[in-house]
């Protein structure tokens, strides 16, 4: 039903866009009509032109997400467990977030080289923050009576973390993962803007330089599709992880 609604909405948007482009005779350089974009997309896919780029970005996305989520989660756990560490490190974390990666990307290249790794680092750096904040908050929200229970049972700090705080903070943490996955793709693409010869981000820039706006939109579409895919995968993971909270039998 809602998939249908979503689809109908999509069709309406596309038709409106196409009509707008034709009626107002919008220059292709400014905003290409969907039909033109579709043609460009099809051409790129059929000729195999897009595939290496998709593969490059997907690889960075996966590696960056894994690294960033691991980092964000671990830092969040550490900071939640040691308030002192939080006060010590949080300023640096905030700085690492607000400083535009785009400006630092040239320096990353100096440090990490031109390979995939420099972009994986950027991706990880961009996506680790939401997970950090959500983990931090979720772990601190455990009811005091449960903490008392675990103290009574002589649970170690690690056990309390793994067996109590993590499961009960899971929904909040997973909200952070959803945000992180989406940001990771942004990170990967932005990293490619600056320093990559391959990948969807590099294609965007190249198409901008060629004034090939239809190609740029086609690439943006691919990026959107990749993002949807990653997001849906996260939702599936989430549904599976939250089963114990939702199962009725």
């Amino acid at each position, binding site marked *: 039903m809602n998939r249908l609604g979503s689809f109908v909405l999509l069709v309406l948007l596309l038709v409106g866009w196409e009509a707008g482009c034709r009626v107002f005779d919008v*220059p*292709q*350089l*400014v905003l290409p009509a969907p039909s033109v974009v579709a043609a460009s997309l099809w051409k790129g896919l059929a000729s195999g032109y897009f595939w290496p780029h998709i593969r490059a970005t997907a690889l960075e996305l996966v590696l960056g997400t894994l690294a960033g989520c691991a980092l964000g989660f671990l830092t969040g756990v550490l900071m939640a467990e040691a308030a002192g560490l939080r006060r010590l490190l949080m300023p640096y974390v905030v700085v690492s977030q607000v400083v535009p990666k785009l400006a630092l*990307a*040239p*320096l990353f*290249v*100096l440090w990490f*080289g*031109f390979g995939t790794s420099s972009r994986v680092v950027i991706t990880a750096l961009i996506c680790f923050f939401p997970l950090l904040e959500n983990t931090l908050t979720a772990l601190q929200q455990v009811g005091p009576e449960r903490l008392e229970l675990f103290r009574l049972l002589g649970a170690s700090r690690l056990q309390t973390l793994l067996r109590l705080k993590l499961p009960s903070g899971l929904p909040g943490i997973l909200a952070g993962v959803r945000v992180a996955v989406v940001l990771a793709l942004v990170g990967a693409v932005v990293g490619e*803007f*600056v*320093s*990559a*010869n391959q990948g969807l981000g*590099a294609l965007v*820039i*190249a198409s*901008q*330089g*060629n*004034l*090939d706006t239809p190609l740029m939109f086609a690439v943006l579409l691919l990026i959107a599709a990749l993002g949807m895919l990653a997001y849906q995968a996260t939702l599936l993971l989430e549904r599976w992880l939250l089963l114990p909270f939702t199962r009725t039998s």
Partner: protein
Amino acid sequence: QAKPLDKFTVAGWSKPITEVTPLLVDEDKGFYKAQGLALDYVPGAGSADAIRNVLAGQADVAFSDAVTFLAAVDKGEKLRAIYDIYPQNVFNVVALKSSGITKPSDLKGKKVGVYSLASGTRQNLQVLLHQAGLAEGDVQVQVTGVLNFAPLLQGQVDATAATDTGLAVGRRRGLGEVNVIEVGKYLPSSSDLFVVREDVYQQKKALLARFLLAYRNAAAWMIAKPEEAAQLATKRAIDGSDPAVNLEIIKLRNASSVSDLTRKQGLGTIDIASLQKAADAYRQLGMLQKAVDVKQVVATDLLSGL
């Protein structure tokens, strides 16, 4: 007070930087006010932005490099170039002295940096390679970002494509001994043009002519009084905090603003023949799909009336 000023917007390829001082000093010098214009500068990140803003009606005239202009025409956009801002080719390829790279053919197999895949540096690198019978595939093109000399110093690229001002600033920042291959030696052609939409050109000739006159006066002033321009840039340009650097940049731009033709026919005169040659070269390189007849897309009448 006299009659109200007409709004006039220039879409640039950059932020309001020292290079474009003639567009930034109206408050001090009044070149445009004198023509009844209230000038506005909208920034962009590359010439494509400038062209796009003009096409969308956000600006009256675009400050665009020649390649981007020709590519837009090639894509079927109705545009016209009305003023040659820099008749000289300002692009070059820079290598460290120690690399032994001195001519285009030395680049074969090397790693060469460009600002971005969208930039004029890349297109001009291609031109250069073509001269040596090489194609882009014969070198490793590496995107470096605008801080392009840093990887060069660090040895992460063997050479890097740049502009004359970029190189000058780089030298100031401690680039050291380098070999410079100037693209202008191989393809002497215009770097940047003022570009307008065909319909605007047809309908607002008078207005455009007033603007061009004002710009020509401003450019002439900058050529005549580089020190004053450098001083004003400290106030008006976003990157102009150091007057000494400003002066160096301004002198370079003054040099690229004049050619034999402009000395004869006045600043801004478009050299149709050399632009046609460039267009043909770009076509050969595959940067353009169709043959562009430059005569059809430049306008000389606006300047000749001044």
